[in-house]
């Protein structure tokens, strides 16, 4: 039973983080809170992808150890696959982190424009003003 919990609890924590972000995006009325929820959602997905590449049992970070130049010179070096972590999820998530900060920046710019026009950031007040003035 403990073995099963140890091998699965990380995924449950990722699911909980994703649900916290989803709840903030759907249930909260403040627009900054919605953006914070979007950030939490994105980082939960990124954490899940990075955890796919983890290998237990003696695997280290994906950087070649020792005589890298000598191995390159001779062409064929013996590289043990089981001693390095899978690098592909890391690469994809590097791109995802930078794109997520770009989307956050554009969203904050739109939020400042909304505040300049409506003088509030609460979604229900914005919808009320829109209904009254018809804009």
């Amino acid at each position, binding site marked *: 039973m403990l073995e099963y919990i140890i091998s699965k609890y990380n995924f449950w924590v990722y699911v909980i983080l994703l649900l916290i972000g989803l709840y903030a995006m759907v249930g909260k009325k403040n627009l900054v809170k919605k953006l914070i929820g979007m950030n939490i959602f994105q980082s939960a997905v990124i954490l899940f992808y990075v955890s796919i590449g983890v290998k237990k049992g003696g695997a280290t970070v994906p950087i070649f150890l020792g005589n890298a130049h000598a191995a390159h010179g001779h062409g064929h070096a013996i590289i043990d696959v089981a001693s390095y972590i899978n690098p592909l999820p890391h690469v994809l998530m590097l791109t995802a982190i930078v794109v997520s900060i770009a989307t*956050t920046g554009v969203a904050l710019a739109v939020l400042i424009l909304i505040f300049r026009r409506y003088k509030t950031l609460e979604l229900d007040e914005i919808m009320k003003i829109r209904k009254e003035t018809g804009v």
Partner: protein
Amino acid sequence: MIWQLDLILCIFIVICAVAAITIKDLLAAVIILGAYSFFMCILYTGMGAVDVAFTEASVSAGVGTVLFVAAVSKTKRRSKD
């Protein structure tokens, strides 16, 4: 990674996430989001993803927090929920 340490970090991260979406002061929520990103960075280092860890620390915890603080300073600091 030692699984007890991993579990404690995961609990800290969940507490930070819950605090960031429940606090009514938006500046405090944004700073807690930065702390959340740094905890996430420790977790990445424990998983062996060092490149992702320092990208997260510089981009998401640094630039992201600066952008959020700038936006909150241009708008209102109080939130209703």
